[in-house]
């Protein structure tokens, strides 16, 4: 036994000694790609590009479109082969982090906008797209400046617009119960009272996987702020998440719980699972991803039965009653050996033919102002696309991802369960923010720089 303990102790000591002597790999800094900003494939040698993306779960038809786009691009550039791999929602960020740590062969990566593109940029894992594409090209990309720019650079190329997040209303179900589409928050709560008394769910949602908490933060929390700058100020410590403008939405969330607006199993349902209640006609309203909303509305009965609205307004703030606009993006990873070729492919995806093909195959809005909006006649799509080009910031994209999961996801679950008040949730969000300023030692400087870019 002593031998075992001695051996274990020796192993520990050896590990410590080696740790002390090891020079360490240090941090990876962003490889400084020469800013070519030309976006034409520079090589005639065979090149294989690897693209990792999220699939078509919020924009059905995206897979078909991408396959066709790759085929067309490879036909025009025979020396280039493009391979794609799919990621799940939960795996998207961790798998990219792992790939970045291991420098796994990868050229193009899918990112959600805002902080989800900023963070890998700050970590040196993205080559700014503005170093690779001409400025007059990037100027056409929707939300690139608002969400993805940092100190004069643009990290990633927006791909398609995600109006964030529309509320779908089943007008028929409301009418059958003597109700109309709620015009404001008070109407909404009355709708909840009426429907819950009849055993009908007013609005379907699932927070078990957390993501819907972030959506709620944005569609409720944005109503009392004037711009994303207020949120960035709270992140760096110049304001507090307990200030009324940043905290009152928690009380509204608590009200929705007290008025029994949600399905009673919201805490044990995942986001997409719960939305099915709306499609099945068991809930009068739900919140969906913008690009998927037209398909969702069709499944639930089409424009004659379904209406798209912004979350009912509880405030008269400038962002109340509006739907935010965010763009899902593609970026060129910093360790790619073929940055110019990867950027050229991203630019190809914004060509007129590809923008049109995207709309035809997915029914959602490409993130490019060169897309001809006049061809859109469907009332649901028209409403969504109008919101999508409004430049309203999507708040969840302007807070640290850690704060989103450690404070927003968590406290939304607790408030909707009724085990925490809105005031307690706001206090915890502030406490989590203070904690994160300690655990993430670069957060304040990164966010301060980002705020100055706004």
């Amino acid at each position, binding site marked *: *036994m002593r031998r*075992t*303990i001695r051996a*274990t102790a020796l*192993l*520990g000591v*050896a*590990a*410590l000694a*080696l*740790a*002390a002597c*090891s020079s*360490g*790999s*240090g*941090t990876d800094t962003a490889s400084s790609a020469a800013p070519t900003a030309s976006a034409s494939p520079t090589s005639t040698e065979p090149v294989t590009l690897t693209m990792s993306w999220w699939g078509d779960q919020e924009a059905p038809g995206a897979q078909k479109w991408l396959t066709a786009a790759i085929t067309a691009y490879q036909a025009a550039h025979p020396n280039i082969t493009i391979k794609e791999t799919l990621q799940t929602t*939960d795996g998207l*960020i*961790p798998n990219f*982090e*792992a790939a970045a*740590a291991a420098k796994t062969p990868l050229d193009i990566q899918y990112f959600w906008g805002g902080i989800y593109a900023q*963070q890998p940029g700050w*970590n040196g894992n993205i080559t700014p797209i503005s170093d690779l594409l001409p400025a007059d090209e990037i100027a056409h990309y929707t939300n690139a400046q608002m969400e993805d720019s940092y100190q004069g650079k643009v990290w990633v190329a927006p791909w398609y617009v995600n109006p964030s997040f529309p509320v779908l209303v089943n007008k028929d179900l409301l009418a059958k119960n003597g109700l109309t589409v709620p015009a404001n928050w008070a109407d909404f709560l009355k709708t909840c009272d009426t429907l819950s008394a009849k055993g009908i769910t007013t609005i379907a949602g699932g*927070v*078990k*996987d*957390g993501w819907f908490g972030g959506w709620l933060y944005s569609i409720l929390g944005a109503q009392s702020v004037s711009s994303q700058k207020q949120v960035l100020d709270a992140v760096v410590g110049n304001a507090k998440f307990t200030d009324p403008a940043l905290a009152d939405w928690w009380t509204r969330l608590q009200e929705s719980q007290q008025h029994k607006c949600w399905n*009673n*199993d*919201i*805490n*044990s*349902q*995942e986001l997409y699972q719960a939305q099915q209640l709306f499609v099945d006609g068991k809930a009068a309203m739900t919140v969906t991803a913008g690009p998927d909303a037209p398909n969702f509305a069709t499944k639930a009965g089409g424009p004659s039965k379904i209406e798209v609205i912004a979350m009912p307004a509880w405030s008269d703030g400038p962002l109340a009653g509006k739907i935010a606009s965010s763009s899902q993006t593609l970026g060129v990873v910093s360790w790619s050996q073929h940055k110019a070729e990867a950027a050229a492919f991203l630019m190809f995806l914004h060509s007129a033919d590809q923008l049109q093909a995207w709309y035809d195959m997915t029914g959602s809005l490409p993130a490019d102002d060169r897309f001809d909006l006049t061809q859109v006649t469907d009332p649901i799509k028209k409403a969504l696309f109008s919101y999508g080009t409004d430049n309203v910031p999507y708040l969840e994209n302007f807070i640290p*991802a*850690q704060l989103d*999961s*450690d404070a927003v*996801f*968590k*406290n939304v*679950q*607790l408030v909707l*369960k009724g*085990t*925490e008040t809105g005031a307690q949730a706001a206090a915890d969000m502030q406490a989590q923010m203070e*904690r*994160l300023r*300690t*655990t*993430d*030692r670069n957060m304040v400087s990164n966010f301060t720089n980002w705020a100055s870019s706004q």
Partner: protein
Amino acid sequence: MTEVTTRTGRGNPPSAGRGRSQRGMWHAALWIGPAMVVMLFVFAYALVQLFTQSFKYQGEWTGWDNFRIVLTDPLFHTALAHNCELLLCVPVLIALALMLAIVLAETIKGHTWFRGVLFFPYILPVTVVGVVLGQLLTLNGAFNTALRDVGLNVLAQDWLGDPAIALWTMGGVIVWKEVGFGVVLFLARILSLPAETYEAASLDGAGFWRKHWSITLPQMTGVIAFYAVTEAIVMVSWVFNYVYIMTNGQGGPGDSTVVTELYIYRMAFADHSIELAAAAAVVLFALTLVLVVAFFRLQRKSLLAVVGE
């Protein structure tokens, strides 16, 4: 090795014995060597990296800073507390596995089938268990529906959605999955016990409880201790899969099911704080090491007991 030395000492000249012993050592080293190289590469390299990172921040040596941050982080305290609470499942596992093993040992008809049923959950992948039970245990899932159908509405709970009971639901799932291992271990030991002792006890008028309390239990302390330590290690550092799958990686609702492994994972891959994750992993490693040392101590004790018999 003890046996070889003893024989050498008895029958061979010292020099010839030393030569044979050395040859034996080289022979053993030759066989063990490749495995040792792999072990060193996999474990020693990883450990060195872990310790290195835990003392650095962005490549710079920062001493104990990372440990100070982790050890003062309220979320880390919560995670550790949850691991400690899960340790309470160990006595439940032992009692349940022991009871089932004894019942199985006494069962004459269909005991193979019952053994299969009890062991089945243990061989199921955690992912399968997590996904299936995650669905069954929703507020309006099959489990609660069944309870309501038989009039037990009061027992129908939001098993994974209520922060007050979510950790215990998780513990229940772990117990359900892990108990099969204990049953097989205990049953094997019970079946190896000499039947004569039981026959003698029966002749003396001992009943079911008396026989197992006074004969079975005292002879099973070694294997019970082994199982206890193994399961304690599971509860401290092997529950990530359950939590990750059943809560979609959130450790929710709220922080109610966050455990140390999930904290480390989130620090490394969600919060981009690889150095803090390394420091938390070193703390977890130290805690697990205590259990591993206890495990070796018990294993040696059991072996000595067997040799003694």
